[in-house]
């Protein structure tokens, strides 16, 4: 018998945080190394992108040296890390602005969309999955499974276009493409970059409503995917847990069925769901290029794609770093949360 005594717990917590920090550092080094190498390996010549292909040779050589491309690779990597640590992601060739400034403009749009889609997916998907598991083989289960299959396999750009056609063009119930109507644009001072928050802070409720009406379709379209995935995973985790012995124990004690499901089985499902939700959120943040394109949503997915087509490598790499950091951050957070919920993972 070994009981972690009370005095041992803060130390264990410190060890966990230390371990996570170390993993984070390693991941970050790996991430920067990969983006750096991609930037060097890509056939796009960064000097040509700056000087244009008509520039004389001496101009080309000058810029080549200015960009430090004549230095050995490890030195270039070190310089790259130095720049990153100062928050300098380079200058976009396309917009001639610091990549960081661009990202600060584009990223909140994606953050807003992905967060709402994930929240919808969690709050609708989990009850649906639980219901399907509890009524396994009965009609609620069939409905949830068919909906899940449709949501999961539906091409998202098609769904987006049909939704726009029906609810915007024909019925005019919601706002169309873009984050906001043109005549509302630029009125609210961007504080967080999240239009809903900024409008609320400024007390501009008309703009808030307008932004909501623009958000509904893209976030619902994006949420179908999150919802289908979360519902499907919840269902299978729940089925697995309901067959465990401890569920029988709870029933033997005379615990009511809702309590058996939510207090006993669901807590164990939650342990597994945390990872799934984290991954879903991260993948939505990564930029849902198709959704953003269909809805002309100025998000990070569109930014990276456009930059890529224009050979704007600093912008692409900067965007990749931000997405990577989000991914690592969310994973770390779900890892910590996981340890909080599951006592076995704390040891």
């Amino acid at each position, binding site marked *: 018998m070994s009981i972690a005594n009370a005095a041992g717990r803060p130390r264990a917590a410190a060890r966990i945080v230390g371990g996570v920090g170390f993993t984070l550092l390693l991941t970050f080094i790996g991430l920067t190394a990969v983006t750096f190498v991609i930037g060097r390996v890509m056939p796009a010549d960064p000097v040509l992108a700056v000087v244009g292909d008509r520039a004389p040779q001496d101009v080309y050589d000058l810029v080549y040296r200015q960009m430090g491309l004549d230095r050995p690779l490890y030195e270039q990597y070190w310089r790259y890390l130095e720049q990153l640590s100062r928050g300098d992601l380079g200058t976009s060739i396309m917009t001639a602005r610091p990549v960081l400034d661009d990202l600060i403009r584009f990223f909140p749009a994606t953050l807003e969309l992905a967060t709402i889609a994930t929240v919808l997916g969690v709050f609708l998907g989990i009850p649906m999955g639980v219901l399907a598991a509890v009524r396994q083989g009965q009609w609620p289960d069939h409905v949830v499974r068919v909906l899940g299959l449709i949501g999961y396999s539906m091409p998202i750009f098609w769904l987006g276009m049909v939704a726009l056609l029906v609810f915007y063009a024909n019925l005019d119930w919601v706002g169309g493409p873009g984050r906001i109507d043109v005549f509302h644009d630029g009125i609210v001072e961007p504080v967080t970059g999240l239009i809903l928050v900024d409008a609320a802070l400024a007390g501009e409720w008309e703009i808030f409503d307008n932004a909501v009406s623009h958000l509904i379709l893209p976030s619902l379209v994006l949420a179908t995917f999150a919802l289908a995935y979360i519902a499907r995973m919840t269902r299978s985790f729940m089925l697995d847990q309901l067959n465990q*012995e401890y569920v029988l*124990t*709870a029933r033997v*004690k*005379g*615990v009511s069925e809702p309590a058996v499901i939510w207090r006993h089985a669901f807590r164990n499902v939650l342990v597994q769901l945390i990872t799934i939700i984290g991954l879903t959120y991260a993948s939505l943040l990564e930029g849902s290029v198709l959704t953003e394109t269909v809805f002309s949503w100025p998000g990070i997915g569109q930014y990276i794609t456009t930059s890529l087509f224009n050979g704007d490598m600093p912008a692409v790499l900067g965007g990749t770093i931000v997405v990577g950091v989000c991914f690592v951050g969310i994973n770390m957070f779900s890892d910590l949360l996981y340890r909080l919920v599951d*006592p076995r993972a704390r040891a």
Partner: protein
Amino acid sequence: MDDGPLLTIEDLRVRYRTPKGVVDAVRGVSFTLGRERLGIVGESGSGKTQTGRAILGLIPRNGEVRARRMAFRDVDLLNASERTMRRIRGDHISMVMQDPKYSLNPVITVGKQIEEAFLVHTRAGRREARERTLEMLAAVRIRNPERVYRAWPHEMSGGMGQRIMIAMMMIPNPEVIIADEPTSALDVTVRMQVLAILDDMVGERGMGLMMISHDLNLVASFCDRVIIMYGGQIMETLDARDLGRSSHGYTRGLMRCLPGIDRDAETLPVLQRDPAWLAEQGPGRD
């Protein structure tokens, strides 16, 4: 206090519809349980566990339970509503399961799990529940109840886990306890301690115990009466001390297969099964 049987089971049948066809798990079992220790012995698949679960109304959805009569005192368990069954489960009939590693919820502390068994059947407050839980932990001879109260199930050994299980199932003070292979997952050394605890509690509180096991020796020494099951039917019912003098072919076969310390056997005999044992004996048989 009445002296009638706690449990009356007549012609109990449990069958499952599976994709491969209908499986008859229990085929016409009848017995009564008073304030005694009743052993139910049989091989795997003989229907002993299914009998226990049918009494609690905890047969999976694809299973079907039928009986001429199945009652706890005067309460008809066969036609009881889910509400009634919930009140009976834990409070009047409880069950100790096989392996505490799987039968305790891994994400709820030991104390909360025991408390819950008490709280679902009373209007008691948190403080009283906590006190009762600590008392129960002490009663199952756990040396440091306060510490175990706060511990997680995975921090407990098998023997500790099973004592926690017993504490949890005894806390509402049920009249009948079904122990389904309560010591099979334990080390031999711990087994006797756990049995002694179970024995004391059943004796002190005057409960009816249904001890499901495949261990003939254990049942013979622990129980008053023994039911021998095979193929979902009762082969015979006899006093535990008469086990060695049984005349039934199946029981004798089982006894012969036991290794003995005083017997110098190179190979143990293999049980010779008589197809006649499986023949439906029909209701009305004693």
